């Protein structure tokens, strides 16, 4: 479904260019939930931006559903690291935005947005401004906004990083049930290993910059999962130990970088 082959990305910079990704290979199958982990600055966001057609690789090929990526693809829902609700629109109009851009008429899109908001636990906040929402609610609204057009692929960039542990856990459960019910493909970027193992079918570990895949770990925890059920299972702890030892090597390497 998603495919990076031999992709190299370099950013021009003041002090010479910077290689963010170095001959990177990554494949995500249809319906899979893959978590991408790695030290900060290793190129995780860059991977998503390449897949979304926002960054052009210097070399290599990028394919989405078998098609080479050129430009922005509407079948991909991308939830970025930043808070990107439009502050001058009500939450409802934010959730309806993608439908509005596609010319869905006002009544239909408002109805659908209302239903999505209820599904994401945002009922009652339709007419609020984004600034009136908590961090967790903003993230849920951002997810609802993307879900409104039924994307076949969801890419999320550390969506819950700034949230408190309790909220994060609730939203992780939301992601799990969303994925179970819709069967969409999810590429999930995080630097939180516990989160990665909890959610994913497969955890892909990136090296310190320049990013390369240094390990892929199949997560054979039973489905359907709920955060609280898996977190304390012996298999979970075992997996966490294995991946952590590899990740900590990369973290050490990242520390040595300027």
């Amino acid at each position: 479904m998603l495919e990076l082959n031999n992709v190299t990305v370099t950013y021009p910079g003041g002090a010479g260019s910077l290689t963010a990704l170095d001959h990177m290979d990554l494949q995500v199958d249809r319906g899979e939930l893959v978590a991408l982990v790695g030290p900060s600055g290793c190129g995780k966001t860059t991977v998503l931006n390449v897949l979304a057609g926002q960054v052009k690789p210097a070399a290599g090929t990028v394919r989405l559903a078998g098609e080479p990526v050129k430009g922005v693809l509407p079948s991909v829902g991308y939830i970025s690291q930043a808070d990107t609700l439009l502050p001058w629109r009500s939450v409802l109009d934010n959730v309806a935005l993608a439908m509005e851009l596609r010319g869905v008429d006002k009544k239909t899109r408002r109805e659908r947005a209302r239903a999505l908001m209820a599904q994401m636990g945002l009922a009652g906040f339709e007419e609020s401004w984004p600034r009136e929402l908590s961090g967790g609610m903003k993230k849920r609204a951002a997810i609802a906004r993307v879900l409104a057009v039924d994307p076949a692929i969801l890419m999320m960039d550390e969506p819950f990083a700034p949230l408190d542990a309790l909220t994060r856990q609730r939203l992780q459960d939301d992601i799990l049930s969303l994925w179970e019910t819709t069967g969409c493909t999810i590429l999930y970027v995080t630097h939180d290993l516990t989160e990665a193992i909890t959610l994913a079918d497969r955890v892909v570990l990136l090296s310190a910059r320049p990013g390369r895949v240094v390990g892929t770990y199949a997560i054979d925890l039973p489905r359907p999962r709920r955060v609280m059920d898996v977190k304390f299972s012996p298999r979970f702890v075992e997996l966490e130990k294995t991946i952590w030892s590899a990740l900590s090597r990369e973290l050490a390497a990242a520390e040595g970088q300027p």
Partner: protein
Amino acid sequence: MRGPKVSPGVWTVLVLAVLCLLWQWASAGGQINPFYFSSPSAIWGSFRSLLAAGTLQKHFIVTVKEAGLGLVCGGVLGTLAGLFLGTHPRVSAALMPLLTGLNGVPKLALGPLFIIWLGLGLRSKVLIAGLMVFFVFAFNLYAGIRSVDRSLVLSVELLGATRGQVLRKVLWPASLPWVMASLRTALGLSLSGAIVGEYLGASRGMGWAISAAGERYDTAQVLCYVFVIVVLVIVLDCVLRGVEKWVLRWQ
């Protein structure tokens, strides 16, 4: 210990009233010469007679029309220019220094030229007012567009927005605070543009009336027009503030 809340408007009126009383007392008692400095009662008197004769209304309408047209034309063109420059970095790299230079030209000094070109009537005043306003909008909107959060634009592009949609749904609403700020600055500018334009050459309007009264040493009438202008600006600014509050209620 704090007294009951008094709105700032009440204080403004109070200060004004005290100043007027002092002024009246000083001119009546001979501390200041009413020939040069007039007095509130004389100003009020000339206000009433101008009103009764219909002269005030006539000049008022002329000036407001010139300033209003200048504000609308300069505002719309300046907004369009700012939007265009903000969204076309290569064009703006070439044109901004030019615009900055042009903005440095004292536009009032060009007034006589405009009057030669466009005559003593409405059009030359609209041009002066509009030109002063144009640069305010152009520069503010340029800065506004440039300061729009890139990640907002990106996220909306990723939802499938076309260039036009990005402009309409992100860039434009994001620059509305700048439009409102420009509008409030431009309000006073367009009025002074029109009035000074009339000063330079006209046959009617408040600027012309002021200069005519000045030539007659009629200080009461000069100050009467000045007060009308001050009150007009205060009222319009209040209205704009209300509009701004509503337009930017999301902030």
